């Protein structure tokens, strides 16, 4: 449970913390949905490290309410894919104890809105354990949380609480937007020595994409880095998780108006890759940040403030935010008016050109 070695941020399987890299192995592309890519990542980590175990409500025989863990109990046994009691604080709190004993628990919280019974254990205990023991204890607990709206669901099933966790020192927060990233970021998150919260964009679970599952398929990219997913020169849209496809669609629409839009997928929300954002905004001079969570007190504001400090003289316009309103998540019949969409993002892009 103790470590005095400091590994680089986001050490990836096959590099700092993983097995020796297989060089020249080439690519091994498989077309998977995001859900299947996560399933594959969990299976590969269960197979690679006997200390890894999965815990959560209904993740065993049922395979989880989104079937992300389907088949894993049959393959690895009920001791390693544990159907837990229905108690989120218990899931997180016992995961901390297991980690103190040398295990590497991967806990599933069934829905975003149900993490709060475990919020105390995450923020007052899990996040602080390494610092309060002056580095003696490491608690490599991974918490997977399906998040976000747009699925027509009922109350507490569509929320985006990522800022609450990114705000808490000691936690890492990541969120993939495509199948390849979902596979590698899940594996990298599990291997981190820090507590990692993975927000999974539930409305994109069925989005298919090519996943390079070869040993060095991560291509040296850490889960804690942003990626430019579309290059452009006139303005930048920064997004994460479920809104990355919307941002890309907005960029494509803007291209029809002759505007070249760069899209950055943040991927990591703690740490935020400010260097990547700075490089982009200093190139384009304009930025729109979009997230489903309410804008007030959200990560968009933090990104805008930091880039103001870093890149003020490069900005052609204020950095604008497109996000949720300061409301409880609304009933799903009206959620389309709440969620950032292509038109609201394009409107913000237009406004950055009006200065």
């Amino acid at each position, binding site marked *: 449970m103790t470590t005095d070695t400091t590994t680089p941020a986001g050490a990836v399987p096959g590099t700092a913390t993983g097995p020796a890299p297989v060089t020249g192995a080439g690519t091994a592309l498989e077309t998977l949905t995001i859900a299947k890519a996560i399933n594959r990542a969990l299976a590969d980590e269960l197979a690679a490290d006997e200390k890894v175990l999965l815990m959560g409500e209904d993740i065993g025989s049922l395979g989880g309410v989104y079937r992300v863990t389907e088949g894993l109990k049959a393959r690895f046994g009920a001791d390693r894919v544990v159907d837990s*009691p229905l108690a989120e*604080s218990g899931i997180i709190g016992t995961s901390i104890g297991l980690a103190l*004993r040398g*295990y590497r628990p991967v806990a599933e919280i069934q829905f975003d809105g149900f993490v709060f*019974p475990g919020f105390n*254990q995450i923020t007052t205990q899990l996040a602080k354990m390494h610092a*309060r023991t*002056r580095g003696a204890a490491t608690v490599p607990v991974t918490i997977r949380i399906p998040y976000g709206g747009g699925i027509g669901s009922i109350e507490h099933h569509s929320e985006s609480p990522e800022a609450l966790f990114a705000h808490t*020192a000691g936690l890492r927060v990541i969120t993939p937007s495509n199948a390849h990233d979902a596979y590698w970021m899940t594996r990298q998150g599990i291997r981190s020595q820090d507590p990692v919260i993975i927000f999974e964009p539930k409305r994109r679970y069925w989005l298919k994409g090519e996943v390079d599952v070869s040993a060095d398929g991560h291509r040296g990219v850490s889960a804690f880095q942003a990626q430019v997913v579309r290059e452009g020169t006139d303005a930048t849209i920064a997004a994460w998780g479920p809104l990355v496809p919307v941002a890309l669609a907005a960029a494509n629409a803007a291209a029809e108006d002759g505007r070249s839009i760069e899209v950055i997928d943040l991927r990591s929300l703690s740490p935020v890759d400010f260097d990547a954002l700075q490089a982009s905004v200093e190139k384009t001079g304009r930025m729109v940040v979009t997230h489903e969570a309410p804008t007030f007190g959200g990560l968009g504001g933090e990104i805008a403030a930091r880039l103001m400090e870093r890149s003020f003289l490069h900005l052609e316009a204020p950095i604008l935010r497109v996000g949720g309103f300061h409301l409880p998540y609304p009933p799903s019949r009206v959620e389309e008016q709440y969620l950032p969409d292509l038109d609201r993002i394009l409107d913000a892009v237009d406004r950055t050109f009006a200065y």
Partner: protein
Amino acid sequence: MHHTPTSPAPATELPEGAVRLLDADGTLHEDARFTPYLADLTGDTLQRMYRLMATERRVDQEGTSLQRQGQLALWVPAVGQEGAQAGALTALREDDWIFPTYREHLFALGRGVTPGQLLALFRGVAHAGWAAEDHRMQPYTLVLAAQALHATGYAWGISRDQAGWDAERRRAEGQVVLACYGDGASSEGDIHESMVFAASYDLPVVFFCQNNQWAISVPAATQTRVPLAKRAAGYGFEGVTVDGNDPLAMHAVTAWAAEQARTGAGPVLIEAHTFRGGAHTTADDPTKYRTRAEEEAWAAVDPLARLEAHLRATGAAGPDPDRFFADVAAEGEELARRTREAVLAMTGDAVAPLDTVFETVYAEAHPLVAEELAWHRQWQAGFADTEAEGDRS
């Protein structure tokens, strides 16, 4: 409307079925079920038990003095609960784990934590004064009941590590976890969830509830309408209420409970019926909510006096009991002196700088923390330059 404090009837009387082996006058009773667990109690162990209790009480008093003199931010007296802790500690094995709340001073000192390490938290120089692995005792936890889930998870890890062990090996090498909490924390949801998990997976955890009758100003009757040990039945395991001021009963019942957990029979709940003799913390004022009569009733069943009477009556204090008790008192004075010395030494360069918090918030590099640490160091260095200039002028 103004109420003068009116405590409920002093609860020195034990709940029905509670285990007491040693009367207040030091007389030992036979108990068919638990007396066999006193078999390992040699004269040396009895002397150690008393020594732990008496020296901890002296350190405890020094903690209060140090706080009153402005040397500690806060102190949490454990006076009155020494018997419960000494009995339990001597019944555990050295490699059993303790997950404390924040009033387990005797456990800490008994496990080799130094007074300086124990008081570092209250001095404000560290959140955790000792390395858990060195003492098989986790740091104090201030968010009540959170540690019970950590204890349960840790016990789950032990259970997984010991999968496939036969009964003989479990008895010889198995580890158990003591999950400490109190009557106040018993109302927290984490205690409930801990007991659900521990029962569902038959985990080797002993829930150790020190019912000291008061959660700051709220009496135990507000937390529960039944003896807390009875709650165990609702989870499907056994609970036992013990006279927490009887160190021998505490030893026997803890030894039994640890054996149950160690050999795979699952969790057990022990409720130590005791009394918080002092204030909740040095910031508390018990005169606002409880009576002098209640405090006096409990002082009459003080665990130290009871064990002293037993040691004198049985000859376990050696051929010259007065000498033994005088020696222990002198050890207490010496430990109190070292406590004061260690606390006063935790100042200036002996206090770990803020840099160490930056360096330990994450196990792996985090660019935001690195950026803020660089800024912080530069800012601090600026003051050093100013001071140097001041020196030159």
